Structure formats: structure tokens, C-alpha cells
């Protein structure tokens, strides 16, 4: 009788260890995975922001010595890059 209850206690203890270990491993997995995913997304956001921020300053000016139509100093300037073919 004593042996059986000892064995039962051992199994119960082992099951308790598993039930507390598995959520911990799962949390670690989620932490690592989500961190890497968020890093990739953040890198993407950074690239997009960097790419967009470069353009507006370069659009200023560069009008002289080019053929234009319409009024100089107009509120809307259309810069057209074209190829005739």
C-alpha cells in the first residue's frame, strides 16, 4: 500500500512539473518569435519611412534651365519625367 501511494505521489509530482514547465517554454517561444517578428516589421517601417523622407527635399527647386508651361510660382508644380517612346 505504501509503495503504491509513493508511486502515485511520484507520478503526480512529475505531472505537476510538466504542467508548469510547458507554459514556461511556450512563453519563451512566444517571446522569441514575436520579438523577431516585431523586429522585422520595425525594420520594414524604418525602411519605408527612410525611403519616403528622402524625396520631398529633393523635389524643391531644380526648375531653372528646364522647359515649363503655365505660371511660374504657381501653388501646384507638376514635374514630369517622360520618355518619348
Amino acid at each position, binding site marked *: 500500500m505504501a509503495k503504491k501511494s509513493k508511486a502515485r505521489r511520484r507520478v503526480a509530482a512529475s505531472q505537476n512539473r510538466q504542467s508548469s514547465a510547458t507554459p514556461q517554454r511556450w512563453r519563451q517561444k512566444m517571446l522569441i518569435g514575436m520579438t523577431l517578428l516585431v523586429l522585422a516589421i520595425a525594420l520594414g517601417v524604418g525602411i519605408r519611412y527612410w*525611403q519616403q523622407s528622402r*524625396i*520631398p527635399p*529633393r*523635389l524643391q527647386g*531644380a*526648375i531653372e*534651365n*528646364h*522647359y*515649363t*508651361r*503655365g*505660371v*511660374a*510660382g*504657381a*501653388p*501646384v*508644380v*507638376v*514635374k*514630369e*519625367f*517622360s*520618355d*518619348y*517612346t
Partner: protein
Amino acid sequence: MEQALQRFEGQVQLVYYPFVLNPTSDVATQAALCAGEQGKFWEFHHMLYARQATWRLLSDPLPRLMEFANDLQLDTTALTRCVKSGRMRQLLEADKAYGRSLQVQSTPTLFINSQRVVGAQSEADLVRTIRRELARAQQQTQ
């Protein structure tokens, strides 16, 4: 673009930057710029588009372009000399570099203020974008 310019007369300025993609258009663009030295850039520009089918597949379009120049009563000798001298190439290269710095990859690419528009657009879409930019510009001045 022409209709849009007429619709928003006095509120829109168009600036043209050649963005050459192949040797044939390189010659055509130089011819247009050389025609500009004789005061007829826009006329030549419009003719190149209107008669595009007759010259764009030619490996040497210069003789055909001189016919256009004749129709516009340009000095074809001076024009030929100008194109063959390659004087305009520096301008073309500078404009292409400028376009590349703005990440222009294909033509036509328009920047309506800072709004980028790529590819052929309908007049309605162009008008809508110009209107939006006009409203934005007006808000900024208020």
C-alpha cells in the same frame, strides 16, 4: 496633362524633365532640345508624341525627325549639327540623375507637388490629384 493645364490655368506649372530610356528616344530628346534653341521645343515635343508610331521603332530616327523639323519650318542643318555634336547629352544625363535621385524608375512619372503618380493617368485622376494639392496648398497659406 494638356487638358488639366487648361482647366487649372494660373494655378499649375508644368516642368518637363526628359528621362531617356533607350538610344532612339535619346536622339529624339536631343532633337527636341535642339529645336528649343530655335524656339520650338513644345511644338517639336507635341509632334514627337503625335507621330510616335512613325519613328519610335527606328534604330536611326534622325532622318524621320528632320522631316518633322521641316514641317515645323526649323533649320534642319543646324538641328542635325546640334544633335550630332552631342551638346544636349549633359543636360539629359543631369536630368536622368535627378530622376534617379527621386527614385523614378519608369515613365511617365509625375510629381504633383510631392505626390508621385506613375504611369499613364486619366484626365479625371490627374484633375482629382491636382485639386487635392491645390486645396492643401491653400490650407498651408491660410
